[in-house]
């Protein structure tokens, strides 16, 4: 499996990470190296095996559907690079 520049551009776009055009090929080579190493997993017979999603070997708990926290807009927005009143501010999205 080798990732061509177009594929790297597409993944980078999905991941919302800017990758300059001249970095597409070297980055593709690096990622392909990792994927080539991962390819050995194809040796394993996984027929009939149920996927394991996590390491917690227990049923997930349910909790009461009630509000337990909140009302801390100022504390939460304290880390925002830009804010407008009680909201995060971003460049205009809707024309």
């Amino acid at each position, binding site marked *: 499996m080798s*990732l061509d520049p177009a*594929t*790297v551009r597409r*993944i*980078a*776009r*999905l*991941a*919302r*990470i*800017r*990758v300059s055009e001249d970095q597409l090929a070297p*980055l593709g080579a*690096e*990622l392909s*190296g*990792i*994927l080539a*190493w*991962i390819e*050995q*997993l*194809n*040796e*394993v017979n*996984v027929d009939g*095996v*149920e*996927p*394991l*999603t*996590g*390491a*917690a*070997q*227990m049923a*997930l*708990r349910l*909790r009461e559907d009630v509000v337990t926290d909140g009302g*801390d807009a100022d*504390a*939460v927005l*304290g*880390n*925002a*690079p*830009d804010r407008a009143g009680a909201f*995060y501010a*971003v*460049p*205009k*999205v809707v024309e």
Partner: protein
Amino acid sequence: MFDLTLAQARDGLRKRDFSARELTDAYLGAIAALNPRLNAYLLVTEAAARAQADAADAALARGEAANLTGIPLAIEDLFCTKGVRTTAGSRILEHFVPPYESTVTANLLRDGAVFLGKANLDEFAMGSSNMTSAFGPVVNPWTRRGDNRPLVPGGSSGGSAAAVAARLALGATATDTGGSIRQPAAFCGITGIKPTYGRCSRWGIVAFASSLDQAGPIARTVEDCAIMLRSMAGFDPKDSTSADLAVPDYQAACHRSVKGLRIGVPKEYRSEGMAPEIEAMWQQGLAWLRDQGAEIVDVSLPHTKYALPAYYIVAPAEASSNLARYDGVRFSSRTDGGDLTELYENSRAAGFGAEVQRRVLIGTYVLSAGYYDAYYIRAQKIRALILKDFTDVFRTVDALVTPTAPSAAFGQGEKMDDPVTMYLNDVFTGPANMSGIPGLSVPAGLDNQGLPLGLQVLGKPFDEETVFAVGAAIERASGFTALPGIRAGAVA
């Protein structure tokens, strides 16, 4: 004073041989002297530490000693600390000040601990050398005999391990997603335990791979880790995977005999290229346990070699999802763009380092349409087989003993040529994360260059007590007393 273990310092505080303030001041002084060389701490919270120490002295004077009253600790900078900057070793969180306290650190504060500051780590805990930190590498306090070139402390919890080894803290919090507690503990000649997944709450710890991440202590001795874990662990309704189980007296478990225990030796961990010194240390460790009455049994974990490549699908997949929240809007660092998408892309390109970008891209790829089944689902099936391997062997043995890492600490800049070479550091530690079982690293000896080597003890889910008992038995037999050249209280 720096020669005292956490357990001894706790006794000294309770007997009023010295005050918590004296102890904290001594550690703050050592940090001021040595941290410029080691870069183990990213932030030293002197004023808060002194205030906590004074509060500890007041509690001790009232006769109200809790588990860790007055004990100075380093807190890995992955644990959110209320009002104290928490960076996760990343430029993108350079100015992030959490408005909340992680459950683990809140538990430690409840039990009277003093926080000296925030410890350096690989960016978002992704690395095995602490070389990926946005705030510079950590120097291992150990050096090769006759060679002063700086070595890595291991990673990702490299700052925590270096701080404890250089005696800049009595213990440290750390996290382990693929080996990030155990490998740095081994590289720095100290002890660390990754408890069972679910034992310590993940709430308030910056997430890397949520199904693998687990917090634990790094400290000088097995008993010191046991004392710390007692406070760190416990059920937390705020973490949906937190185990609702009582926390045992781990310190008592350190004094249990290993007589009659069955210790498994997985043959798949005996890789062909294994350094003879590591093989010899492994055999020595098994002999020590045999001498104390344990029975050594050969076992097989047939899917061992697939644990790490499967890990490098699961962990990046979860990371790509967890790190989606760092968008230049909500947390601290932003790089502007012409529109919102450009703002996201520029902020993440500027804020994430090369290794984090690689893993987010790999994760995005393996989760993308058309590749999900071939990579992600297949990896999860292999994860099920890895767990089955462990479940099967733990029907016949009480614990497993293996080397912690395939080498001793290496030099800064080594193993950097391609990512997979660095990933292979976790070949012996990763399977415990994939299966959720507890694992401890304990120093067992020095290699012929004078660097520490660690042995790993793996146990059944939620049976940290047996892991502590076996670790303590190795510790007693090894009589490991070697110390790094760079440390507090040493004549430089």
